[in-house]
């Protein structure tokens, strides 16, 4: 019992820091979401009920349905390709070879970059006039005139997703590689004796064994992608014609352009409600226990 008190004392700083810098402002932000809080009009702040949410949902310039669809597209497509390519990379790296750790250093490096810098890097690569991607495609005779990767409304979303996939492959690569290495070899040997081919081994041995890792990484990653507007902000800032706006970038613009903190916080509340309901459904569906969440 005495030891327990010590333990509680040692975890207190963490709780205090999180309470003061995260939960206290979070509560404040939750309250602001129901107020007409504008930086230009600080004298007349009052509770306005659900006005902010109403304004967001009935916004005529940028339809809420489109933003939701964009958010889903951004999250699902990014997640899917990050996962599949990361998984492929991990499979290829599974058996050791000379120089593997150096190779890993180079191929996993994008993980350590800043979201905003990645956005800048890719907007330079995708630049319509001086971009290297257009130039290479022209030289290879694949295209005959420059593509507006970031200015064509039908293409822009896919361009930002490509940048996000580039950033996210290492995360899944690292996590899944280690999980793959933990699969005991006897399982594969037994499967070979039972006459399993490599595809069958993948689906009957590998994937079931590393399922906890898959479940937890996919959940965390999807939350992080939803909360990762940095890249879009740097590349298109929601344009062209709002076709790359997601909930997060709308929130940024409410803050930076309109100084409308009320609506910005309302966007925040919407994001959190969506993420929480998503995680509950996800955990129910995958039957993962809380312990496996990380």
């Amino acid at each position, binding site marked *: 019992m005495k030891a327990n008190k010590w333990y509680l004392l040692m975890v207190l700083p963490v709780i205090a820091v999180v309470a003061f810098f995260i939960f206290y402002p979070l509560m*404040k932000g939750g309250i602001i979401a129901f107020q007409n809080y504008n930086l230009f009009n600080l004298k007349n702040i009052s509770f306005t009920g659900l006005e902010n949410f109403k304004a967001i949902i009935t916004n005529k310039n940028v339809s809420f349905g489109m933003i939701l669809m964009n958010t889903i597209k951004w999250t699902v497509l990014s997640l899917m390709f990050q996962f599949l390519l990361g998984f492929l990379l991990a499979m290829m790296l599974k058996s050791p070879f000379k120089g593997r750790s150096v190779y890993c250093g180079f191929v*996993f490096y994008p993980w350590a970059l800043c979201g905003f810098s990645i956005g800048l890097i890719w907007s330079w690569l995708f630049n319509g006039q001086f971009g290297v991607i257009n130039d290479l495609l022209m030289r290879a005779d694949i295209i005959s005139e420059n593509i507006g990767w970031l200015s064509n409304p039908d293409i822009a979303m896919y361009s930002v997703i490509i940048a996000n996939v580039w950033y996210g492959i290492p995360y899944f690569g690292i996590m899944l590689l280690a999980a793959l290495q933990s699969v005991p070899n006897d399982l594969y040997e037994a499967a070979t004796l039972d006459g399993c081919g490599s595809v069958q081994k993948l689906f009957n041995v590998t994937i079931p064994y590393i399922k906890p890792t898959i479940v937890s990484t996919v959940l965390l990653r999807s939350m992080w992608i939803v909360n990762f507007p940095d890249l879009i902000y740097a590349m298109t800032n929601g344009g062209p014609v709002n076709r790359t706006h997601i909930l997060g970038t709308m929130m940024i613009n409410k803050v930076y352009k309109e100084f409308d903190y009320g609506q910005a916080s309302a966007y925040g509340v919407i994001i959190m409600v969506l993420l929480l309901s998503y995680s509950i459904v996800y955990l129910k569906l995958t039957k993962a226990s809380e312990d496996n969440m990380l």
Partner: protein
Amino acid sequence: MSVRKIKTISYNVFRVFILILFLLFAILPLFWIFITSIKTGEELYSIPLVYWPKNPTFDAYTRLFTYSNFKQYFINSMSVTLSSSLVAMVLSVMGGFSLSRFRQKKLKGWIELLLYFTQTVPSFMIMLPLFMFFSKLKLVDNLPVLASIYVATVIAFSTLMSRSFFDRIPVSLEEAAKIDGCNMLQSIVYVVLPLTLPGIAAIFCFAFVNIWNELFLAVMLINKSSKYTVPVALNSFISKAGVSWDLMSAGIVVSLLPTMVIFGIGQKYIVAGLTEGGVKG
């Protein structure tokens, strides 16, 4: 036998091919940014594109450090990042150890749930109230304040990470140390900590990378250009007229160096840490 051999060989060829593709995909964008940073102004915007600068110049780097005071931003970033990652590391090691050894299951469960919950919070949600709070106290443009907030942004995840490292170290080790006459602190310092060093290094790297790269909080809380952090400075290179890409590329390259060093040194630990620690399989 020979069919099997052909199969292995063709698989290996396929594997090498795929690995090369991944490598190119990962490094070419960065390589291009480096090439851009050593081009002369004319080469930068010439068509057809110049792939190999004829007169490579480090002019953009010179301008970065003279004209834009990048050295100061770099020092600001370094001091904020180092101090907050160290604090976050110490606190989360303490917290993670306690959570791992805590015997009141219910309270422990609640604390962990709270820490998980922070992962759903969009940073802009807490940014506004924090900004209002600190501007009332006249504490904007204050790097220690920024550093304290950064501790909070990484500590929940770090604590959960460190808890799972300690989970893997059997309590019996500490009990044995107690029998040998160690008190609790001694048994932690001499027995438990050395075993979790890779994990602790991973926590530090994780915190460092995340904090070094943070932009939006810093933009909000830092206005004075003498207090800029590196991402804020990069953000300020974007003017209404557009981006001057040689300067920007040089800035990006320089800003990558610290995380590159940390990642180079810590890669082993990050991989071991994120996987063994983070994922309980």
